[in-house]
């Protein structure tokens, strides 16, 4: 019995310890924000890498999801003569849930993995040690610019994803399902509230923070060799994805739970 409890408790304690380490790392990152120096060039490079270069993947994900959503809502709605709600449900579904979550997960796949692999390789090849010997704090030079860029650009990507996703639904609904174009747009605009958009952007900021922080954290914690880099990359994407989904549930509960 004791062994069974110990076997159950060990992974729970390990998970809590890991969560604690991430929380401390997050606090150190935020503390670095208020202390000079600030590496502007690295921040701009991170903005381009995380924001601009993620646009194609975000756009493609959103447009196909919006289109599929329109088809599903139409097919489901037909069962009880509610197919007319396609514009409203596509809009609310994309803006409140699918837009932020899908963008967050795509950022975890594209950006978190790339940050983790890059920083882990830097650690394995002693570039992190070299930074320190060159009087440069890796937290300020590598982590802060990426986390700040992620927190600022992912909400914008979510906004773009929301718009493109709604457009995907619009194209399918008007091109394939016979909806009137003007009525579709009017229904979408009438139904969406500013709170929906704000919630979407807040989720985007939180998911951007999580995705970039997990990439940096696991990169910095990487073990030696190619296996260490691979493990850091895998852990960062898995950790970021789970945390994004958990954070999404928490944020939805707080913002729409009542």
């Amino acid at each position, binding site marked *: 019995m004791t062994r069974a409890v110990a076997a159950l408790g060990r992974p729970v304690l390990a998970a809590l310890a890991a969560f604690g380490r991430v929380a401390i790392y997050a606090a150190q990152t935020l503390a670095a924000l208020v202390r000079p120096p600030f590496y502007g060039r690295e921040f701009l490079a991170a903005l381009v890498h995380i924001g601009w270069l993620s646009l194609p993947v975000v756009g493609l994900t959103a447009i196909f999801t919006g289109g599929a959503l329109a088809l599903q809502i139409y097919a489901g709605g037909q069962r009880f003569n509610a197919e007319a709600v396609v514009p409203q449900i596509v809009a609310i579904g994309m803006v409140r849930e699918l837009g932020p979550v899908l963008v967050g997960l795509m950022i975890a796949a594209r950006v978190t993995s790339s940050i983790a692999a890059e920083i882990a390789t830097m650690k394995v090849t002693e570039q992190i040690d070299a930074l320190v010997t060159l*009087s440069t704090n890796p937290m300020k030079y590598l982590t802060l610019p990426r986390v700040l860029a992620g927190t600022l650009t992912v909400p914008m990507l979510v906004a773009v994803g929301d718009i493109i996703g709604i457009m995907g639904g619009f194209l399918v609904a008007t091109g394939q399902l016979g909806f009137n174009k003007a009525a579709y747009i009017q229904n979408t605009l009438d139904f969406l509230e500013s709170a929906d958009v704000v919630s979407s952007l807040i989720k985007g900021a939180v998911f951007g923070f999580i995705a970039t922080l997990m990439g940096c954290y696991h990169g910095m914690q990487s073990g030696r060799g190619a296996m260490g880099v691979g493990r850091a990359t895998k852990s960062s994407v898995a950790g970021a994805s789970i945390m994004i989904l958990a954070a999404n549930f928490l944020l939805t509960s707080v913002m729409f739970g009542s």
Partner: protein
Amino acid sequence: MIELSHVTKSFGSNHVLRGVDLVVPKGQSMVVIGGSGTGKSVLLKCILGLVRPDSGTITLDGQDVAQAEREAFLARFGMLFQGGALFDSLRVWENVAFRLLRGPLRRPKTEAREIAIEKLRRVGLKPETADLFPAELSGGMQKRVGLARAIAAAPEIIFFDEPTTGLDPIMAGVINDLIREIVTEMGATAITITHDMTSVRAIADRVAMLHGGVIQWTGPVAELDATPDPYVQQFIHGRAEGPIAAVR
């Protein structure tokens, strides 16, 4: 002067340093020899604060390095890493001038570039190399760039971690000569870690042998061959038989 006193460091059950005592006089070139995995790199990293010793003290000019103001302390050092540790995303000149482009030693970009090109020339690289990325360079060129970066801000103390590992004998000789020349002309204090005996004879004023987590022997390079210390004799002659186990 760098002074290590009873420095210990363990990683789990692996006791790497078991009480290292070592004095490196100012302006001298100390070479630390020892087999692979004996803790030579850990020793350097302890001095730099990259690894925190479990016990013991390390002082630089009498001041405990653990108490020193980090940025000012590190500004006194330059380091050549074993694999070069060049930043892949930066051009060669930006690597060399890294310290001159940010922080308290910051210079205007054009001036930093000029200094970088001058340092590249000093290590035998053409100015055209400046705009290449590290991945476009051979191993020997990367080592030279690493050396140029280590000396770019004219540090008082320079560490060389396995400077000739992975290089052919001719390139290794070139790097050894460069290190000796640069250390002499800058009047810097140097610590080199290596297991390459050619490097030892080319670079060292004094030699220390690290084995079993302690300094087994230390003395002037001229006394290296004559010392009766069995560890040193086995190591410098590359014998399988002796007090150092061949299988570790």
